[in-house]
């Protein structure tokens, strides 16, 4: 029982045919050429410097939470760039294609993108930014920071951690592949129903969207299990719940959300898959289907998802603001309470995404009030950060600048969110670009916090700071671009512009569209600043090596050496206070050396996660193109890998005290970029058991 498909299908290649490769589209030709050139350059460098083995041993097969975190962030930044290019294309299209007589080039009637292409661009933009940029970047920070912050050696399940990373990466790779083989979905990041059903989206675009999300969200769910277990089980001695740093608290709450919400998305997409593959009628308008069911399920995941993103961001702000104010966070207990209040309320508000669906006033009233309740704990947080500044000694370092800008974005996004929460207002701006501007304030707050986090924690990992001057240039240009673009977008919302328009028919929108385009150009400049910042920082790294990059840092991750050794702490720290490092510094204990070292049990690397990730990617590809034999084969491969793993007797190795001592005195050999000798034969001292 299979759904009827338009177009050819063959047992060998499924729906794949040569004309699915859009080699005639000029934009894609250039993109493809770029990818090939960059890809070859990377491969060449790796081979030329003989780093292939190093990459495989130290990165691709690693189970070290810090390296996994770094790779998460790299994947996220690459996808952030891809998503940005999509955004740039959309803005440029809308300004070029303004007015009924707007000319067209490159085969488009208006502007330069025909709707078929434009619709894929905006759908990919949203999907990428939320699921493949913001999510991996934040997961990356959680991976890097949480174990260090709670004094743990690694995550609870290091192997599963690597698996999460590679599943997310497989999803991202599928999204990228859709550029060159077939199309991406043209039905929005939310999968507008019934537009995603086969009669209206007969191509493979929706399948790319569906399977990419499905695979990566398995990764996210596994990661949530891992994070929760780590925080609950692996806190260092003395780290009671109320000594837990706020970033770890927000990670905990955020991953509880992920663990409960992602399965809903999985089910919604699986049912959609049943419609598209088996000819079922879960979400069709006819034959007993119920399309509102999809919309409900999607937002039952979708709303918690946005809080899954924002809570760790609140955590980052709560680390950065105290550090650069030289003061503890104001109202720690209420901050934690507010975090969990936000998480709790986030399950109760999903209907605010479709107030205009025609539900009665009682239902809309309930969800309106529930939505506004989020404003209370959010307000508490803002007040608490403000009072943290009060009587502080504030340094305007780059992370602090990002945090302060984030505060501003939170106020703008909160104000407009509280507007959208009133159905009486929502009816006039739902589906308008005003809404788009609202959530961009919020997701740009995620981006601001991400850059705060990058500049803040970079030296912890790599031992040198990012260049302050270029960091500030990057910050200011980015900030200016954000303010200009989104102020104009709010204005357009009041002018009545709605979202997802391929060409903007009203010439009155032109001035603001031009302003937006100008703002977007500033983002382009800011990216250049970012790249220069990286290059300059790496060039000058010898000058910015510091034992303590931020002398006013307060939490445990800064207690261990910088750059952090791969075993995290030579001796598991005993925690005495909430801001442990600040407390030790005050009592002159921060430089204390342990009097002796003990052997450390470390997990061994494994190639299986990256192999499973690759097989999952192949499986997704086969499902998208309906190449059943390949799907069966890759699935069997995954199962074999899991079986192999379950018979694996390797229980890790022990780092010997002498080795630790050597690495503690020469930090470079323990750093995460250093190549490690093969230690899998280290003997296991009996007393260490």
């Amino acid at each position: 029982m299979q759904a009827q498909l338009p177009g050819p299908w063959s047992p060998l290649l499924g729906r794949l045919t040569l004309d699915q490769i859009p080699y005639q589209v000029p934009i894609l030709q250039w993109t493809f050429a770029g990818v090939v050139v960059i890809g070859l350059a990377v491969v060449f460098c790796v081979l030329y410097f003989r780093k292939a083995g190093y990459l495989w041993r130290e990165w691709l097969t690693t189970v070290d939470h810090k390296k996994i975190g770094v790779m998460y962030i790299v994947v996220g930044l690459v996808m952030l760039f891809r998503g940005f290019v999509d955004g740039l294309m959309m803005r440029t299209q809308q300004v070029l294609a303004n007015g009924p007589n707007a000319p067209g080039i490159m085969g488009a009637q208006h502007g330069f993108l025909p709707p078929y292409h434009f619709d894929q661009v905006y759908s990919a933009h949203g999907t990428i930014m939320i699921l493949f940029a913001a999510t991996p970047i934040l997961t990356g920070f959680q991976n890097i920071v949480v174990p260090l912050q709670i004094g743990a050696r690694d995550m609870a399940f290091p192997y599963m951690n690597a698996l999460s990373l590679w599943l997310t990466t497989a999803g991202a790779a599928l999204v990228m592949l859709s550029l060159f083989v077939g199309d991406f979905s043209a039905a929005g990041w939310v999968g507008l129903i019934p537009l995603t059903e086969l009669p209206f989206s007969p191509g493979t675009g929706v399948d790319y969207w569906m399977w990419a999300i499905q695979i990566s969200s398995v990764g996210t769910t596994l990661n949530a299990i891992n994070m929760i277990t780590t925080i609950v089980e692996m806190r260092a001695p003395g780290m009671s719940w109320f000594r837990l740093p706020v970033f770890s608290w927000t990670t905990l709450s955020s991953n509880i959300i992920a663990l409960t919400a992602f399965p809903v998305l999985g089910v919604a997409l699986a049912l959609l898959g049943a419609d598209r593959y088996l000819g079922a009628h879960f979400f069709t308008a006819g034959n007993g289907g119920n399309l509102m069911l999809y919309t409900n399920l999607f937002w039952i995941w979708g709303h918690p998802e946005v809080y899954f993103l924002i809570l760790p961001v609140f955590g980052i702000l709560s680390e950065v603001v105290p550090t650069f104010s030289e003061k503890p966070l104001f109202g720690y207990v209420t901050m934690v309470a507010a975090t969990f209040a936000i998480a709790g309320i986030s399950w109760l508000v999903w209907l605010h995404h479709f107030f205009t669906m025609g539900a009665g006033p009682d239902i809309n009233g309930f969800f309106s009030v529930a939505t506004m309740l989020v404003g209370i704990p959010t307000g508490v947080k803002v007040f608490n950060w403000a009072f943290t500044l009060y009587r502080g000694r504030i340094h305007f370092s780059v992370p602090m600048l990002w945090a302060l800008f984030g505060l501003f974005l939170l106020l703008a996004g909160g104000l407009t969110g509280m507007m959208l929460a009133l159905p009486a207002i929502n009816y006039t701006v739902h589906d308008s670009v005003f809404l788009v501007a609202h959530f961009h304030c919020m997701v740009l707050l995620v981006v601001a916090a991400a850059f705060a986090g990058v500049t803040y924690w970079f030296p912890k990992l790599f031992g040198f700071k990012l260049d302050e001057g270029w960091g500030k240039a990057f910050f200011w240009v980015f900030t200016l671009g954000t303010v200009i673009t989104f102020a104009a977008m709010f204005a357009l919302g009041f002018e009545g512009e709605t979202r997802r328009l391929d060409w903007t028919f009203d010439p009155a929108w032109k001035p603001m569209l031009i302003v937006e385009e100008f703002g977007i150009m500033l983002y382009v400049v800011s990216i250049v600043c970012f790249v220069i910042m990286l290059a300059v920082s790496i060039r000058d790294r010898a000058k910015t090596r510091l034992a303590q990059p931020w002398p006013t840092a307060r939490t445990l991750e800064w207690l261990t050496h910088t750059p952090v050794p791969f075993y995290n702490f030579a001796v598991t720290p005993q925690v005495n206070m909430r801001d442990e490092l600040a407390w030790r510094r005050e009592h002159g204990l921060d430089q204390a050396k342990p009097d002796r070292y003990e052997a450390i049990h470390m997990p061994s690397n494994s190639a299986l996660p990256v192999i499973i990730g690759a097989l999952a990617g192949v499986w997704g590809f086969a499902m998208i193109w309906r190449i059943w034999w390949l799907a069966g084969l890759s699935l069997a491969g995954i199962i074999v890998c899991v079986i192999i793993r379950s018979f694996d007797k390797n229980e890790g190795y022990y780092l010997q005290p002498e080795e630790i001592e050597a690495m503690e005195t020469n930090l470079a050999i323990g750093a995460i970029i250093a190549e490690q000798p093969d230690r899998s034969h280290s003997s296991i001292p009996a007393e260490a058991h």
Partner: protein
Amino acid sequence: MRLKPHLTLPPLLALAACSTGDYRLFHPMNMVATQEWHATLVDVVVMLLIIVPVLLAVGIFIWRYRKGANGAYDPHWSHNTVLEFLVWGIPFLVVAGLGYYSVKTIYAVEPYNPGLTQAKAGPQNVLTVDVIATDWQWVFVYPQQHLATIDELVVPQGSVVRLRLTSTSVSNDIFVPQLVTMIAVMPGMRTMTTFDTPKLGDYTGFAADFSGAGFSWMQFATHIVTPDDFTAWAQKAAASPNQLSYAAFQKIAQPQVNEGAKVSYFSDPEPGLFEKVVAAAQAGVVYPVSDELSKSIGSNEHAKLVTPPGPNVK
């Protein structure tokens, strides 16, 4: 694009745009829209009552307590019971007030709005128009006037208009800024919205929720005319030689773009057309959109377009 983004241009353009009346939502044209605009103002003012002080406080704090300034430094100050009550209490009060206000206004602007109908007009002043969204046009059926249009909504001044809405294929959202607020339009289901027409005027309505490749072309003209003009218009339209039978409707419902939103009129729409469309969608009738069609729309290949096949009953 004739104007190149230039450093000084955007601020100037911003100013220019402010002075014109382009901010449509600032100029509501009937009762519902006015109430919604008032709700917007109330909400913003109340929110600014806390946001502005917070911004000021943050500004003052970062100035006064910046490193090297003379603000008193207290490395341990992190708790104050009174303040912590206030940081919960103030947002709580604001949200309680706004929550009450929100629920109250929902009833006032309720799209199915029987209250509005009763307050503003006797039954003779209520005009019912059935709206059917297709891929990618709007069909307006006037059962009382025995006429139908494509992409034109004409209503008399001083009446209350009830729109019943459904769609033949995918979900959509109807929107006439200043006049008709957004409401979903869904296949196999009906929604409703109500608006009053106190002033004469011409507006552009359009689709607000993405519905496929032809979505950006889905505009329709909206005119509020005098009752006499309305009668004249209705007579003219109802005299159209084209009758809107269900078979004729099925042709219109084929996926197609109406470039320039050209208006057409039909006489004698089949009685119960709206219900028939809803029932058909429920029974599984779809008007499929092929990839070739989606690809051709808005591209130069559009002219080469072949006529799409008939509706596909599963």
